[in-house]
């Protein structure tokens, strides 16, 4: 274990992303992750083979899925002796999983591994209210019939309504979109630029599908062969007709700019990425699309610190750039996860802002702007949808392929914001 080596990204697979309660309404996280692993196995001929480790996770997870990834491996065509574990870092899960696999490969602890993520908002776990939960626990532990009857008698009709998991921050009670709308307001991100970014995402992704870019990145599932949210024919005019859906927390008179069009919808889906050492890839006659060069996480105090919930990647990127002696402009492609169009725009604006870069990021000069022509060139979450834990894998595989197509020595930046005020960023290089 002398030196480290860079982990190679060999390829990826995902199932098309489906809108909530639609094509995958009957599919569980385990079904989707298993199918995704099987598609990856088929693409790379890994039937019956052991990879070093499979790492994946889900944000919305049933208690019974405590060993989700390992169970999915057991249901897949991989060698059942392949170890696996679950991770969860909200929307950063998929990228974090890739970083974890890459790091073990870098250290020589494993030679190959699969990183993934899955989420369903259709088959989400329901919890019962706290009162009912306590009664049910005492019912379960009651030893006599009398005790059981006593416990049952304490149940009131009002307790029956289940608690549906909400897309809200536990510490603020605000939906993520409400937080993003506050940030959009703070950075004065206009409606039109959000809609423009949205149109470009759909157009880029539709064009990529048309030219077969996703032929070796996606495997159809349950009758879906393209992302259900993708609207190739969307336009500024159509998006302009949509009403804002967030803005409850905005100050009086502030304009709400975020709509169902320029925000990602609730989505179901899964993704997986195959990583390996260069030697393992060569032994298996598999390509090396790119290497995972470095990664960084950050978190912000969005509760008391006055920072936006989704601004953590803004902090993570300069740290990572400095460590690698790079500037923000030293990249050929940028993948900034489109949780909301406004998030991408606020992120870029913050990097351009001298005062913010100085005061908040502690930089002498702003990071500067990025060439929009290099941003999310094959579409991102606004078009594909965003099954939380599956987004990282989608981005890593797509960017790796993009870099590979562009030729050797190309560099790409990934930036993903996550609930809880966190961010995960990474550098890939072909």
């Amino acid at each position, binding site marked *: 274990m002398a030196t480290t080596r860079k982990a190679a990204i060999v390829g990826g697979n995902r199932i098309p992303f489906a809108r909530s309660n639609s094509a995958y309404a009957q599919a569980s996280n385990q079904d989707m992750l298993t*199918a995704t692993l*099987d*598609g990856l*196995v*088929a*693409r*790379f*001929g890994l*039937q*019956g083979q052991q990879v070093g480790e499979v790492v994946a996770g889900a944000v919305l997870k049933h208690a019974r899925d405590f060993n989700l990834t390992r169970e999915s491996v057991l249901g897949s*065509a991989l060698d059942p002796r392949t170890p696996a574990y679950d991770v969860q870092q909200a929307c950063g899960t998929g990228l974090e999983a890739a970083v974890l696999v890459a790091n073990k490969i870098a250290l020589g602890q494993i030679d190959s591994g699969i990183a993934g993520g899955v989420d369903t908002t259709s088959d989400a776990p329901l919890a019962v209210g706290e009162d009912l939960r306590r009664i049910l626990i005492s019912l379960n532990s009651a030893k006599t019939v009398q005790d059981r009857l006593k416990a049952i008698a304490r149940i009131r009709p009002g307790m029956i309504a289940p608690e549906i998991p909400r897309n809200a921050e536990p510490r603020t009670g605000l939906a993520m979109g409400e937080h993003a709308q506050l940030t959009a307001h703070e950075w004065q991100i206009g409606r039109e630029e959000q809609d423009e970014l949205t149109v470009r995402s759909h157009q880029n992704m539709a064009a990529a599908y048309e030219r*077969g870019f*996703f*032929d*070796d990145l*996606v*495997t*159809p*599932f*349950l009758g879906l*062969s393209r992302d259900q949210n993708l609207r190739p024919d969307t336009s500024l005019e159509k998006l302009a007709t949509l009403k804002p859906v967030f803005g409850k927390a905005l100050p009086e008179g502030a304009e709400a700019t975020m709509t169902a069009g320029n925000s990602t919808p609730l989505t179901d889906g899964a993704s997986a990425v195959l990583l390996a050492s260069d030697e393992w890839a060569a032994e298996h*006659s*598999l*390509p090396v699309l790119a290497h995972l060069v470095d990664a960084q996480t950050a978190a912000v105090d969005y509760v008391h610190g006055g920072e936006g919930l989704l601004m953590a990647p803004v902090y993570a990127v300069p740290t990572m750039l400095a460590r690698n002696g790079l500037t923000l402009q030293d990249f050929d492609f940028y993948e900034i996860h489109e949780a909301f169009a406004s998030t991408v725009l606020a992120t870029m604006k913050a990097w351009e802002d001298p005062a913010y870069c100085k005061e908040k990021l502690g930089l002498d000069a702003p990071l500067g702007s990025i060439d929009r022509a290099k941003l999310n060139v094959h579409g991102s979450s606004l078009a594909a949808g965003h099954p939380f834990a599956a987004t990282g894998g989608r981005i890593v595989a797509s960017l790796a392929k993009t870099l590979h197509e562009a030729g050797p020595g190309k560099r790409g930046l990934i930036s993903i914001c996550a609930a809880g005020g966190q961010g995960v960023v990474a550098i890939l290089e072909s």
Partner: protein
Amino acid sequence: MADWYTNFANSGFGTTVTKQLGLPRPAVLRRYEPGRPLLPGPVVIGSAGSGRLRETLTRVVTDAGGTVLPAVEPDGEKPAAVLLDATGVTGPGQLVAAHDFLAPAIKRLRASGRVLVLADPPADADSPATAAARQALDGLVRSIGKELLNGSTANLVFVPEGAESSLASPVRFFLSGRSAYVDGQVVTLSAADVPTGEDADRPLAGRVAVVTGAARGIGAAIARVMARDGAHVVAVDIPAAGQSLAEVANEVGGTALQLDITAADAPARLVEHLRERHGGVDVVVHNAGITRDKLLVNMDAARWNSVMAVNLQAQLDITEALLAAEGVLRDGARVVCVSSQSGIAGNRGQTNYAASKAGIIGMVRAWAPAFAARRATINAVAPGFIVTEMTANMPFGTREVGSRINSLQQGGLPVDVAETIAWLAQPGSAGVNGQTVRVCGQSMLGA
């Protein structure tokens, strides 16, 4: 694995009913299973004419673990196969010897028996009388095929002077269960460098085989048979069929390649994939095909063009790209193209489809010499009525008639087409080139 009617007709009750009503009584065909003997009984070999193949045939049969009966006795052991060496017939007068040998032997033939006649190609004859006698065998064999019962078949192999070493693989195929639904066929061999010593149960071991349209139907069966015979299968189908494609690939331990073969860059992408992942390819099966039926007068350009693009143009383009790519199509490569009975007989409502499938037959014939020069082969297989999910959706009447109008009185199975393709893909089949083999149970259509 047989269809419901065949199962019914072979049940106790069904036997009574079908006999009394005079209904067809299709046999349960003897199909290949790895590890089982070539034939369930001995072979009898006879000659008409001077016959130069007897020794070779005896060796092929015994090498494959079979036994040769010296002669058929009226109450002696029943043969499972009857081989007639008719090489050297020089005029019609010698044909009576064929009759004299075949009649008593076929009378004693077991169920799922085989009649195989070997002769010189009529085209090579140096006199009209010789050509007539050789051609006469064609009519003889086809008629025997129609007379045989109980799942037995009759086929004819033309063996030009010098092509004797090509004989082993075709003889084994026609005797074995791999040819269960191949009946009334004529195959002309050519002289070739035939590799020997392949493992009879895994003749494709170590070979990389591309199968297009592998997500379902006949293509999935081809993938299974190829993998069973030892090949690594690269299963190709359109991206939209990816889920079942992945299932097939995982089942056979192969790889899935989602690719629309009609895309402009499809040949280049396939070539690149094969080069990068496998360093080349040994077997290419052009199986993907579509139908867009309409009477010619009602057919729009879209229907015409899409059928031509998938069924014919893509086969041409991909084959050309493979030939052009340095070192990708490996020494001894095998290309097998799936044609159709419609391409031979024509079919109402299928002008586009039949044209494309007939085109394939012309294509393999024209390409054969260039392939031979590379120690490779290119052949076509023309399935007849094959029972698939597609045919299962046909109206009952159409389906029942379609499946019975052949000498074996039943539809074929996807595996029957697959077995024939896998045979053509064998290294030992080097001497079968430019041929179109029908897998149709000797269909009455286009025969």
